[in-house]
């Protein structure tokens, strides 16, 4: 019995002792075990379980009170020591902290975005149950087809996996009764929309099922921002009335400040209040698609199950309504998590930036490790003396880690300040990629990340430098002077770190270079228009006022005549949209696409019909935008409701459908052959959905035949934005109730369309520039150190007849060797990481030779420059001085 308990109790005691610091144990463990054994023997002699229990209790309490005290004492003395060392080397400390701050700051700021956009769930209850449903016409390449009222009814009544299904579409209406007529962004939603998302109103109520009934009194819910900014947070807003679409609308509630998806709106109305959604055409025509659909999964149902469910419903629709869903379009529908849907556009860019930020931090770590090593060379004697005086190795490691952690912590704090300062900029940027941008802020998750980054950083660079110095402590005492063996080993370590820095810098520069090349390529692309001195204005024709087509036609003509007469106006046109219009870029070509048929051509079974985008334009549209006529004629005033139906196509369509013949005179139809439009002209291609999108087939129809005067486009003789006021006045001369908004020059629109790649390139460029600066400074630093360590050797060489040129060459050569090694590794890494950037590039291969060679040369030049100064100093060594110095 005794023999069995004794070893176990010793083991247990030993385990407890392990809680004490290493050095303490080294000093006292043996003695402590001896004392404990004697105590045990004593207890056993006296006998009794109580005595044994008491001993254990005292022993355990003793260790648990002593251990934290001992650790704390070491920590405070290490911190004190570290602070003294940092004060003694202010230059080193400042550079190290600043380097780390840049690295940690870059990571914190990118992480705050990734955290808010990709990691955190949407700010709604059980947000993982929210899904987005998409109809698709796969064979036409249409991934995101909107829904018609009929279809929504079908999905709602037939699904078995959803606890709620709601619709949404965005409109612009003019609101009267609150100052000037105001164009308000309006979300038209199902009555259970807010209930399904779990949003409770701040004031009043949201919508009720009876609000959705046709003919129900129109009601409005205001968004928090609109209520706050336009109504000064008026607490008596509920019950107030405004006129919209010729009807009195009553405000019934105000939303809380929640992020609004999929768009931000000023007001929300139920489906019955939208004049378009409640029109006969929309209610009864299965093919009038305008809405988006969201759903909430029933508890326990997966997205995959829901996807299978909606796809089965789609198959049923296909069977029941073959005319609406022809076999050859590949109609189906899928469900996807809403969160994924809202962040799809941002994901690749954010992941690329996160990787870039991580690289910057790695470079910063390598650089600080290098700085620490250089400083360690000076401190080696001190550390060796401390070691000789009895400080255990792990004690020294611990102290070095404390020093590095304090520096990383300071760097982290400064980095946090940098991240905080850049928050607005970064939110603005991410806003172009995802509606979640407004959720970005620095919260506890981000703070935790910063702390972890600081801790990880300190362990990385602290261990790098400490591990190394450990192995050399013994030798440095013996060698007395800067020991040759140790120095060489240390230099090898430092060189390896420099090579790493160059390799990472190379990869970052490649990333930035590729983005920049893409951007330049994009800018050089011929958009197909002449954007200089063109202004576009959104004009909202109050639909209730222009009840007949004739009235609208007259108004359009009056508008064009009035605008034309304005001094400074060269050409004016109206259309339903214009190239680079922000909404069109967001919506993509799919939002204005339709399929059609060509007269005399029958489709093979399974063959998909051709698809084209569509624009309704007045005759001068082409002239105003500078779109060249390639064949046939442009529209004339006589192409109106009284004449035959005519259309103009672009060259992309000619290439696709009539590659070897003239399409002039051919006829196309988009209503199953009920009406045919004759092609009268071919115009140049326009990259209107973004410069990165190659031109796609487009059909233009005369505005007078397809009344949709949403935009006024004006070519001016002067700076276009200077005419905004005069043109707005001209519009109001024709109709004072017409809201004018979204005034943008075509150049602005074009510039804005490239915002995302431009900001990505800029951020990557900043990261890469930082990396280049750090790496260059690193090369310069290590070459200078090597030269100073080798003064004696260089002196001997010169004394033996080496010419300054040889010495210069030698030092330069060493610097260049590091650069070449780093570039070599960098090339391998960059080639391996092409997947990360591929999707973001435009007409530039991820292994673009120009970028790779340009970046390589840049780094070589930087390395040469950085090594040149130390090399010149080496060449100027006076052998007499050098040899005497030792």
């Amino acid at each position, binding site marked *: 019995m005794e023999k069995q308990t004794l070893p176990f109790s010793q083991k247990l005691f030993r385990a407890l002792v392990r809680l*004490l610091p290493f050095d303490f144990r080294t000093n006292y463990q043996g003695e*402590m*075990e001896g004392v404990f054994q004697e105590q045990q023997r004593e207890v056993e002699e006296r006998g009794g379980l109580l005595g044994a229990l008491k001993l254990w209790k005292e022993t355990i309490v*003793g260790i648990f009170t*002593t251990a934290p005290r001992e650790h704390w004492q070491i920590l405070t003395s290490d911190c004190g020591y570290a602070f003294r060392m940092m004060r003694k080397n202010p230059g080193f400390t400042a550079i190290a902290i600043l380097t780390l701050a840049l690295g940690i700051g870059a990571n914190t700021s990118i992480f705050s975005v990734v955290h808010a956009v990709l990691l955190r769930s949407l700010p709604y209850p059980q947000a993982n149950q929210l899904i987005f449903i998409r109809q698709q016409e796969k064979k036409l390449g249409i991934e995101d087809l909107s829904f018609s009222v009929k279809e929504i009814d079908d999905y709602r009544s037939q699904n078995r996996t959803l606890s709620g299904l709601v619709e949404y579409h965005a409109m612009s209406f003019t609101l009267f009764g609150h100052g000037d007529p105001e164009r308000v962004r309006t979300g038209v939603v199902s009555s259970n929309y807010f209930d399904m998302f779990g949003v409770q109103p701040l004031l009043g109520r949201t919508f009720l099922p009876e609000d959705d009934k046709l003919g129900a009194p129109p009601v409005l819910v205001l968004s928090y921002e609109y209520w706050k900014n336009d109504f000064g947070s008026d607490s008596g807003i509920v019950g107030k009335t405004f006129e919209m679409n010729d009807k009195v609308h009553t405000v019934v509630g105000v939303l809380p400040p929640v992020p609004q998806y999929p768009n931000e709106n000023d007001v929300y109305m139920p489906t019955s209040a939208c004049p378009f959604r409640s029109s006969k055409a929309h209610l009864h025509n299965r093919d009038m698609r305008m809405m988006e659909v969201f759903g909430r999964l029933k508890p326990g149902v997966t997205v995959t199950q829901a996807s299978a469910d909606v796809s089965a419903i789609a198959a049923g629709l296909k069977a029941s309504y073959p005319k609406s869903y022809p076999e050859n379009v590949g109609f189906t529908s899928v469900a996807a998590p809403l969160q994924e849907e809202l962040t799809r556009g941002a994901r690749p860019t954010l992941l690329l930036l996160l990787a870039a930020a991580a690289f910057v931090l790695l470079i910063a770590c390598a650089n600080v490790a290098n700085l620490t090593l250089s400083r360690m060379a000076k401190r080696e004697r001190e550390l060796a003396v401390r070691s000789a005086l009895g400080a255990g190795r792990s004690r020294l490691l611990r102290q070095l880690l404390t020093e590095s952690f304090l520096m990383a912590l300071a760097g982290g704090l400064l980095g946090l300040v940098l991240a905080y300062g850049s928050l607005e900029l970064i939110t603005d940027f991410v806003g172009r990629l995802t509606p979640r941008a407004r959720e970005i802020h620095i919260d506890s998750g981000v703070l935790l990340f910063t702390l972890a980054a600081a801790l990880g950083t300190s362990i990385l660079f602290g261990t790098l430098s400490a591990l190394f110095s450990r192995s050399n402590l013994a030798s440095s005492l013996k060698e007395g002077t800067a020991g040759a063996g140790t120095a060489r080993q240390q230099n090898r370590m430092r060189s390896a770190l420099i090579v790493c820095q160059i390799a990472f810098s190379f990869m970052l520069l490649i990333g930035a270079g590729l983005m920049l090349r893409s951007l330049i390529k994009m800018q050089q692309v011929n958009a197909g228009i002449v954007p200089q001195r063109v202004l576009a204005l959104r004009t909202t024709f109050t639909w209730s006022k222009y009840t007949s087509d004739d009235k609208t036609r007259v108004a359009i003509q009056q508008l064009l005549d009035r605008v034309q007469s304005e001094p400074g106006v060269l050409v004016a046109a109206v259309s339903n949209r214009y190239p680079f219009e922000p909404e069109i870029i967001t919506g993509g070509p799919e939002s204005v696409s339709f399929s059609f048929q060509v007269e005399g051509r029958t489709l093979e079974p399974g063959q998909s019909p051709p698809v084209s985008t569509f624009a309704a334009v007045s005759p001068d549209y082409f002239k105003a935008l500078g779109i060249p006529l390639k064949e046939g004629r442009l529209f004339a005033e006589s192409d109106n409701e009284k004449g035959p139906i005519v259309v103009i196509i672009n060259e992309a369509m000619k290439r696709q459908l009539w590659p070897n013949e003239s399409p002039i005179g051919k006829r196309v139809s988009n209503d199953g052959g009920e009406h045919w439009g004759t092609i009268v002209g071919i115009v140049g291609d326009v990259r209107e959905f973004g410069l990165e999108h190659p031109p796609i087939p487009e059909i233009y129809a005369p505005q007078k035949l397809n009344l949709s005067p949403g935009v006024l486009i004006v070519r001016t003789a002067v700076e276009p934005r200077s005419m905004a006021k005069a043109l707005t006045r001209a519009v109001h001369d024709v109709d004072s109730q017409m809201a004018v908004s979204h005034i943008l020059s075509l150049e602005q629109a074009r510039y804005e369309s490239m915002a995302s790649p431009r900001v990505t390139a800029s951020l990557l460029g900043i990261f890469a520039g930082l990396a280049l600066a750090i790496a260059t400074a690193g090369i310069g630093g290590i070459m200078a150190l090597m030269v100073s360590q080798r003064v004696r050797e260089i002196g001997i060489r010169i004394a033996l007849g080496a010419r300054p040129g040889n010495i210069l060459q030698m030092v330069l050569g060493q610097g260049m060797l590091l650069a070449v090694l780093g570039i070599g590794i960098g090339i391998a890494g960059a080639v391996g990481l092409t997947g990360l950037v591929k999707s973001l590039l435009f007409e530039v291969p991820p292994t673009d030779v120009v970028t790779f060679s340009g970046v390589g040369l840049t780094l070589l030049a930087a390395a040469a420059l950085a090594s040149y100064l130390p090399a010149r100093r080496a060449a100027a060594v006076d052998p007499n001085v050098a040899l005497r110095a030792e």
Partner: protein
Amino acid sequence: MTKKRETEPFLPLTPAMFHILLALADGEKHGYAILKEVARRTEDKVRLSAGTLYGNLARLENAGLIAESSRRPEVGLDDERRRYYLLTEFGRDVAVAEAERMEEALGQARAKKLFRKPKLA
């Protein structure tokens, strides 16, 4: 004067420290002997465990109040692992200063006739 300034930062000593110093006042001892002596003298009121004992020894040694003795007992009586500790001059000064401090406090308590007062419940 100078001595007092030096001892002052260590006052008041913790009871454990004071008793360890007292235990060493009449000669060098190894750890277990210190522990036994303290327990005996305080009638088990101050009981040191291995952890608290060596925690205190480490601090006293670092502060120079005690030191490890180079003398070893005769071979045969010696346990390899044992180390012997002795009270340094400075340690003696600190112990004296602590005793004086306690004496002064005791005197003041007596002057206030603290001891005759009944215990408060």
